[in-house]
Each structure stands twice: as C-alpha cells, then as structure tokens.
C-alpha cells in the first residue's frame, strides 16, 4: 500500500558530468550505428558541435548519475524488487553537451493504490528536474512505476 504522505517529497540533489563515452555506449547497446554518437570528430563532420545526447540518454542520468536512486525509492517505502516500468517521458528544455555538469532533483509527484484481479498495485509517478552548471533548466524527466504487491 502506497503511503500518500510521501507525495510531494523531494530527495537531496545529485550532480554528475555528462560523458561522451556514455552516449556512445548507449547508442551501441541500442544497436544504433549512427556515427554522430561515436566521437566528437564524427559529430562535427555531420554538423554538430559535439556528440549530441541520445534521445534516451536521460535514463543513464538516473541510473549512473544518481547512485542513491534505489535507496531513495526504498526510503519512500517502495519495494524495488517488484517494480515494473509503466511510462517514461522527457521534456528537452535546452541543449545538453558532453562535459556539462547537471544537477537533478527527484520528486514523488503522484501515487495511488489500485485493486486488480491479481492483487493490488501501487502506481507512482516521479519527476526529475535537471539544471546545468549555469543554473539553466535543461531537462524534465517523468517516470511512472508500477509496484505489484
């Protein structure tokens, strides 16, 4: 049963550097061999100033950038062993480049318990707001997770 008192709770900010190599690694794992993701030189040859962010690179921000993410979910009473991913949404607000230092703040924005045929499940929405080293808001990531009881 989801504890509604944690709705609105924000966790302490986390900071990390956007790494060119992590963008390349993600593209390769997805099986995307577009050379713009492989090196700064290739990206520049295609007209970019540096390796662009992969559309789903923000997922590496939450897992690699926020090493405390799992512990934060546990502290909010969420059983991380029973999580299914329901939805993921990004708003790309301003350019993000390799070398940028981003700071993210995760907030639990919604949560409810639903009764289904196979028992109850909690549906929890989190949002991460990212700003760069100049304090400019660059990205908003929204995630819905489903925790089966």
């Amino acid at each position, binding site marked *: 049963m989801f504890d509604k008192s944690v709705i609105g709770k924000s966790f302490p900010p986390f900071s990390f550097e956007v790494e060119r190599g992590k963008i390349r690694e993600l593209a390769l*794992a997805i099986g995307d061999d577009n050379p713009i993701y492989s090196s700064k030189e290739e990206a520049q040859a295609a007209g970019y*100033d540096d390796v662009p962010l992969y559309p789903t690179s923000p997922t590496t921000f939450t897992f690699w950038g926020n090493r405390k993410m799992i512990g934060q979910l546990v502290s909010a009473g969420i059983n991380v062993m029973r999580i299914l991913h329901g939805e993921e949404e990004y708003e790309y607000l301003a350019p993000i480049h390799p070398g940028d230092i981003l700071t993210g703040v995760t907030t639990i924005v919604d949560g409810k318990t639903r009764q289904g045929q196979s028992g109850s499940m909690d549906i929890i929405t989190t949002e991460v707001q990212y700003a760069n080293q100049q304090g400019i808001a660059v990205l908003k990531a929204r995630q819905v997770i489903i925790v089966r009881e």
Partner: protein
Amino acid sequence: MTTDAQAPTKVYYEDVQVGDEIPKLVKAPVTHLQLVRYAGASGDFNPLHTDSRIGELIGTGGIIAHGMLIMGFVGQLLSDYVGPAALRKFGVRFRGMTHLEDVITCTGTITEKYETDGRGYIAGKVQAADQNGDVKASGTFVAALPHRS
C-alpha cells in the same frame, strides 16, 4: 530558446504534413548479449533482464528486455527522422514485455503541425511492436523544425 545553433537540419517544417508516416525501423532480434550491453550502458542492472533464473522465479517467462531498450529503439527512429537535437518532448507507455529473439519494428505518424513564436513544431505518435504485431511501447513526441528560407 532551445535552438542549438550547431545542429544540422534533417527535415524542414514545410516538408512535413499531418498524416505523414515516419520511415519505419526494423531492429535486429533482441539477444542476451544486447541486454548485457544495455545493462552496462544504462546502469540498470536489475537481474531480471540478464539472469534467466530470476525470470523463472517471478514468472515473466525467462529473460525480458529493459523497457528502456525498447524506448531506445523508438529513440533511434526519431533520431534518424528529425535528429536528436530537434526533439522537444518524447514519452512512451510500456504495454508488453519483450523477450529474447523478438524482432521489434518501430513506426510513427505525424499528428500535428503548428507554429509558436515563429518556430515550427511537429507532433506525432510512435510505437514499437514485435513480429506478431504485439505492441510493446507506444507514445508521442514533439520536435522543433526550422523553416525553409
């Protein structure tokens, strides 16, 4: 406000019409090795994506792919179509589990075209489905496109 001066144009606003289909992307079959690579690239080491014993324990029928890998496939579709720097919003809902050897095809359609403050935007719906037509993820995107001058 989010113009990235150093990003090449793949498609112009005038060249896109509502109802246009995005060139489809057929991915190679999902392999165990790909999921191991994806785990490392993304930082999501949940063993249900790499260890078949976990899948048997919790009844997912063997290893299942990371939902975010499937969103990554759809990201490749959009990266190929408008380029990563043009994306302003991208979100999906996960609708089914992807298993090893599934062949995922990503498709999309333009649903809207509009101008705000002199800038052109397109919006569309996207999805990823397997060889049987079972939808694994569906969602929407918004991209900013330059005008032909």
